[in-house]
């Protein structure tokens, strides 16, 4: 089954890319933006049909490789 993971920067970590995107949006006329934070999205197809096990597996991947927990948080989203 397919499991998705979203990795985002923690609140206190500077995100210069997000800041530049925000400024560009501002320049394009999107003046209602408070803040932009850039993150990563992974779609992982695992050989596992049990949703709990599949989620646990991807969580383990997030902890060990996909996210650096010093600066990033992860969120697992079940897809199908």
């Amino acid at each position, binding site marked *: 089954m397919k499991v998705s993971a979203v990795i985002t920067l923690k609140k206190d*970590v*500077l995100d210069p890319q997000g800041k530049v995107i925000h400024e560009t949006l501002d320049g394009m006329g999107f003046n209602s933006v408070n803040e932009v934070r850039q993150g990563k999205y992974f779609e992982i197809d695992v050989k596992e049909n049990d949703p709990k096990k599949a989620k646990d597996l991807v969580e383990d991947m997030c902890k060990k490789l996909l996210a*650096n927990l010093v*600066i990033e948080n992860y969120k697992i989203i079940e897809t199908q």
Partner: protein
Amino acid sequence: MKSSVITFPGSNCDRDMDVALTKFGFKNKMVWHNDQELPKSDLIVLPGGFSYGDYLRCGSMASKSKIMHSVINFAKSGGLVMGICNGFQILVESGLVPGVLLRNKYLQFICKNVHVKVDNKENTFFKNLDKKVLELHIAHNEGNYFCTNDQLKEIEDNNQIAIYYCDQNGNTNDQINPNGSIKNIAGIFNKEKNVLGMMPHPERMIDESLSGEDGSIFFKNLLNNIK
């Protein structure tokens, strides 16, 4: 003295490091990332470059390669390990030194000579160094050193900051900070000070024709300290 330089796919300062180590008297061996065993070594170097194309996070993939198990064991048993630039990024991703290296604050790839202040000489890397400020070269996109407040406190309490970005007189301030690193940190030790990660490239400053020779001072001193 024997050294080993690890080559990862995308390393590009590995041969420069080989030239530098050999020039100052190390018997150096090149080791492929997919090997499992390290040759007998007094020093292991993780070189600069763009291992795995900097995919995911710089150094993240290389930190999981086969040889890194041996490098981590070597470091944990007290062996000397030095990571330069991408090698520093691999060290933080492997957990051998604390913190992370973020994208440079002003989003520019920086390639220039900088001055660094050597503050801590109670370690094998800088012991007896007769200069306080070295001119070295940096070339990186992700050299913005970051750590949590708790980590910073621990790092400072244990004297783990190895070098700081500074001006030619050794003054550290925001204006001289090239990439936004916390406290102008350019290099850091593990707690035991046998592992050093730093962004500047000493191997690029080993000849008069290479815009400076402060790297020579570093390598000569390092060899004497290991002897």
